[in-house]
């Protein structure tokens, strides 16, 4: 049992501070990055969109890993961290979709189309909205944790489908610019570096939020136990 007082511990503060600092640096890099020959300055949405997408995937995968750990070990802390990660992933996904729509309207000509990438993202988001409905619907903590873990583990299936959708099916969404499948980067260094800085900033912030939310949930659980 943890004995600390609620509030930011040293590691949370350090991660949060570093994350915000990196975000500022990333923002500076992004506004200093050159425009794209076709899109002009619109390309800057990419620094937000890709960073949010990648960390969103990461958050959902981590939620699945903690869910699996919970089922194997039965420690409530794993359930709390799984829920915290899924929630951060959901917000990052919303951020990705909003950025993507702002980019799509001037580029493709529409905010949204039901093409493979966008449809698989919509399914992914719906599943994680469902995850939180499951958590709300079940009152018994152990039942809730088990059912939520099942959804979180099944939800991970979405990530490879969503990521690969632009390779498997014909879509209007372009394939990845940092192409880990074909090991190519379709981007000059003056754009790649800002993207990587933003990616790093988002990852550090994700870790900070995960730790803060996990600790908060632990304090809540401890308080509920002492009250009841």
């Amino acid at each position, binding site marked *: 049992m943890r004995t600390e007082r609620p509030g930011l511990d040293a590691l949370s503060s350090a991660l949060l501070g570093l994350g915000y600092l990196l975000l500022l640096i990333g923002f500076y890099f992004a506004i200093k990055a*050159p425009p794209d020959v076709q899109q002009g300055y619109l390309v800057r949405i990419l620094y937000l969109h890709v960073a949010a997408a990648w960390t969103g995937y990461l958050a959902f995968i981590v939620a699945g890993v903690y869910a699996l750990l919970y089922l194997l070990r039965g420690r409530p802390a794993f359930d709390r961290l799984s829920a915290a990660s899924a929630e951060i992933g959901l917000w990052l996904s919303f951020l990705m979709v909003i950025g993507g729509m702002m980019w799509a309207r*001037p*580029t493709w*000509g529409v905010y949204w189309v039901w*093409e493979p990438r966008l449809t698989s993202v919509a399914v992914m988001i719906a599943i994680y909205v*469902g995850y939180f409905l499951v958590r709300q619907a079940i009152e018994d903590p152990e039942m809730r944790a088990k059912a939520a873990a099942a959804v979180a583990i099944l939800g991970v299936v979405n990530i490879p489908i969503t990521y690969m959708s632009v390779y498997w099916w014909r879509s209007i969404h372009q394939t990845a610019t940092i192409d880990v499948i074909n090991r190519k980067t379709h981007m000059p260094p003056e754009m790649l570096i800002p993207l990587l800085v933003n990616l790093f900033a988002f990852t550090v912030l994700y870790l900070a939020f995960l730790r803060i939310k996990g600790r908060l949930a632990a304090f809540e659980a401890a308080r509920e136990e002492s009250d009841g």
Partner: protein
Amino acid sequence: MKAKYWIGLLVVVGAIGYMIWGGLGQSLVYFITPSEYFQDQAKYQGKRIRLGGIVKEGSIQFDPKTLELRFVLTDGVAEVPVFHKGTPPALFKERQGVVVEGRFSGETFHGDNLLIKHSETYQPPKEGYTPEEVRKLIKEAK
């Protein structure tokens, strides 16, 4: 007790089911190419389809007064003349990948929705890029 959450859950499950079996089924083949259309013309006859390909060089005719846009869509093998009413998107130009939604009317494809397919490659303009130069560049790209 918590009926509203179960209703919410049912709505979400229904939406996912609809997107997978209804939406995704259709959008898996998001567009067909002109060659594929000609191979199976009977199947697509009179149906609303999405045609995807490249805007053929030198084929764009746009009348700013009537907003009538005509161009030839090609996949390198087959070509389709396209008619579209409305201002083309900013990135519309020769050799640009596009997807057109609409239906055939005789030999011509009448599009009512014109989408630009952007590539995954990003590239700054070759020379120095002051905002003015970029604005000029973007204007020329139109």
